[in-house]
């Protein structure tokens, strides 16, 4: 086996540093595809390079300077400064103020317009906005609280005690069990279509909850097992505390000790999928138990009473929590289901054929739907999307060879 050429290693280095232009990136990709025999070594090199780059960054940081900056921008006592400071990366926002002031002065100097132009009757269609973080928390008492994006919303139980805090997109529950076991009734968190939210349970377990989902969980885990219920989709990072953690879905129960996995059990989908990223889980479907290993996915179809386990690229099933849509060779009708939940739109397929076209790609979730659909259109000669407010019509392109 030949050695990897030096210029390829250097391209790899530039790529990992984020300094590669498109042409060079393509060159690197082409070489990688043409030489699968080197993949293992390339992976190892990437690994090593990553570490070297991290060392470089680590050594280049000057903590004293950074602390000085933080110290001068914070008050002596916490909470005294009401306005957050402007930092370098938000400098665009900082420039807005002087521009506005200039704008006002300028308009006073302009001669008054004689006729105001008539409003155009054809309005530009508003791009369909992506989803955002939002959720509703329903406590065991029945009280419903809308989780706002603002920072530090304190959640209290019926006794008035603070049981959790909501900041930006995460709600974290306290671990201290002050009160004795009053009620075992669970709390529920509803994430609507177009929403997504993070929950940190009282035991430290982190759960990313996807759109159109509901998670039920108690204030504290008193018994010998920690049990939660899910309808929809969530990614779990379970903290190991000795007690088994069980996720109940409509058709199965997943049992773990401490691990990371994705559960997808939407009511409007035919099957439930459990994807294991790390650790070990045992999935109970009906009366049988199915252990899973990292990289495996269990698919259970209650209608056909089948259970299938296969190896998958787990990232395809977990990237949603990292603000990415990823699909590999996925039929457009399945893609449509995912988009429907995030963008809150409906897809109408003109014919059966158009449902089956497959696509591979990755897009950031905060892209507008219009852009995303345009991207899909541009990669295919077969498909066309017509966007009318909240309805998307999918047609087969005319005049296809």
């Amino acid at each position, binding site marked *: 086996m030949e050695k990897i050429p030096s210029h390829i290693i250097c391209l790899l280095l530039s790529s990992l540093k984020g300094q590669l232009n498109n042409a060079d990136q393509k060159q690197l990709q082409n070489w990688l595809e043409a030489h699968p025999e080197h993949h293992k070594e390339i992976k190892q090199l990437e690994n090593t390079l990553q570490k070297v780059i991290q060392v470089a960054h680590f050594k280049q940081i000057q903590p004293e300077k950074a602390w000085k900056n933080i110290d001068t921008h914070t008050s002596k006592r916490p909470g005294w400064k009401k306005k957050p400071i402007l930092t370098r990366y938000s400098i665009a926002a900082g420039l807005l103020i002087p521009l506005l002031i200039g704008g006002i002065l300028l308009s006073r100097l302009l001669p008054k317009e004689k006729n105001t132009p008539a409003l155009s009757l054809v309005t530009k269609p508003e791009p369909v906005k992506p989803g955002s973080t939002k959720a509703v928390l329903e406590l065991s008492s029945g009280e419903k609280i809308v989780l706002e994006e603002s920072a530090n919303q304190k959640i209290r139980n019926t006794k008035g005690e603070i049981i959790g805090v909501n900041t930006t997109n995460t709600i974290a529950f306290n671990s201290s069990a002050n009160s004795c076991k009053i009620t075992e009734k669970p709390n529920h968190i509803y994430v609507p279509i177009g929403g997504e939210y993070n929950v940190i349970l009282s035991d430290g377990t*982190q759960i990313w909850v996807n759109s159109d989902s509901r998670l039920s969980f108690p204030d504290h885990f008193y018994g010998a097992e920690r049990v939660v219920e899910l309808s929809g989709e969530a990614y779990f990072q379970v903290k190991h505390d000795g007690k088994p953690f069980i996720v109940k879905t409509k058709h199965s129960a997943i049992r773990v000790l401490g691990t990371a996995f994705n559960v997808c059990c939407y009511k409007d989908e035919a099957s439930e999928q459990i994807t294991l990223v790390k650790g070990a889980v045992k999935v109970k479907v009906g009366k049988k138990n199915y252990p899973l290993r990292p990289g495996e996915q269990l698919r259970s179809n209650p209608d056909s009473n089948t259970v299938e386990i296969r190896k998958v690229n787990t990232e395809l099933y977990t990237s949603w929590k990292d603000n990415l849509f990823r699909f590999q060779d996925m039929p457009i009708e399945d893609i449509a289901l995912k988009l429907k939940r995030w963008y809150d739109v409906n897809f109408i397929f003109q014919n059966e054929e158009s449902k089956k076209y497959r696509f591979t790609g990755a897009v950031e979730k905060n892209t507008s739907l219009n852009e995303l659909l345009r991207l899909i259109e541009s990669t295919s000669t077969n498909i066309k999307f017509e966007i009318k407010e909240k309805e998307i019509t999918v047609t087969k392109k005319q005049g296809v060879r």
Partner: protein
Amino acid sequence: MNEAAYILNLLKQGEKKGLQLLFKKYYRPLVLYALKFVRRQDIAEDIVQEVFIKFWEKKSFIAVDQHLRSYLYQAVHNHCLNSLEKNENRRITSISDYGEWAEEERLDDSEWNQKLEEIYREIRKLPPRTQEIFLAVLFKNKKYKEVAEELHISVNTVKTTIARAMITLKNNLNKKTYLFLLFITKNL
């Protein structure tokens, strides 16, 4: 009382020393984490600094309890995603890089130091000329042309030296793991 509880106590009493200790424990690791998402170190540092400032002013420590570590990592993650709205900040690497670090990978400063010392030592073991070129390109961020001109060698020589050094490091680091594993299994 362990360190985390001590820091939390100070914070709850409104003592800035608590913030400083928290900073010392997590600043550098959080900057490394932010660098997974944004391209420039100065932007990564700005983001993490803002996280600490907001943490103090919004008194986020009040209900975070012992989840300080995961809270900070999560907060940095969110800030990074917000700043990725601007294209210039985005780091163009493989998509798998957008993933968060798992809990076990969310280390503090001394844990990171330990982890990185090993690599730093291996770099120090490279022959002096190779090391000089390597450090210039990787640590001082000099361009190949710059280094070539300074040392009166060709750009090609710089590239081949870097490539050779990378292979050496890769082999040595992997060998260590292998030997370590061998040692473990032999002694079971």
